[in-house]
């Protein structure tokens, strides 16, 4: 990659940069948000754990959704192609009868 830029005559400061981390807001059903910065390759389960600790809830009772889909154990911001200021929704399980 470096050679490619050199050959193309692109200076170091002009190279496109992919941030190593992303800023993500975890937003609850009341619209309250908690902002986290997380490495793009880190597991989102770390963020989920940190959120549960921050709000004092049992992690197992919370559901974390990105674009309406549940976040799975092995998901990372990179894997989900997340970008800065993206929002993860968090919800308690709902029931009805």
């Amino acid at each position, binding site marked *: 990659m470096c050679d490619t830029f050199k050959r193309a005559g692109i200076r170091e400061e002009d190279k496109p940069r992919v941030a190593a981390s992303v800023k993500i807001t975890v*937003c609850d*059903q009341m*619209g309250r948000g908690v902002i986290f910065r997380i490495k793009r390759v880190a597991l989102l389960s770390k963020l989920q754990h940190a959120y549960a600790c921050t709000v004092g809830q049992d992690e197992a009772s919370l*559901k974390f*959704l990105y*674009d*309406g*889909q*549940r976040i*799975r154990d092995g998901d990372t911001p990179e894997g989900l192609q997340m*970008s800065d200021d*993206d*929002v993860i*929704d968090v*919800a308690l*399980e*709902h*029931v*009805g*009868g």
Partner: protein
Amino acid sequence: MNKRNTIVDDVRAILATVPWAGLVRGFDNGEPLHQLATYATRRWFSDVHENQLLDLLRLAVGRHPEGRRTEVENIAFWKFLVNGYQKRAEGTYQEARHFLRPRGVGEALERGIWDQVGFIVNLHNTHWVSICVDFPKSKIFYGDSMPGSSADPYIVEVLNWWISCHSEHAFTWEMMDITYQNDVVSCGLLSWNGLAHHLLPNEFPLIPASEVQDARLRLLVEIMNRHLDHVSNQKHCV
């Protein structure tokens, strides 16, 4: 052997083949397998079960020639609409990436790519109701298994706002054909059944209130079979 014994035997047979550790395969959300036990009880359905049922319905609709212009959304869809409604003064719905999904559905309906969208809504963490928004007919069908009920005012407010973002027409509200529950546990099943019947009446007849327990067991077998199909497919891939 009567019909009831047959379905109970089917459940017993399938329970004997499924390990209760791990996640359910073949559905959008890989939920823990033990959550499926709820289908064989009289416990309330949670969003886990509603999403699984909506996944089954989406598959059925997708396979059906008449279903090509219908979208079935999961439980999160309503949360997006509520969120957009709450932030309507800031205009974030029209701009923010967060609302890409509901905006995409709205635009597909607006452009006539889809005719209708169906989904299920939880009310006050105690009750499930179903909704189908039909753009060509300019109608919103509302399914509530509680006899004598009418559309929840907050749902009316939020949906009217969302529709106004994508259509200039005035939509009218109509009650969906649905089985009324005669217990305090079946709204999750009957709201889904009402929506399924509304979208594909021949494939999904209305479940009589007296047969809700059998229907729960039949759905358990269907979900387990789908799970087993996916587990065995995965093994072949390896």
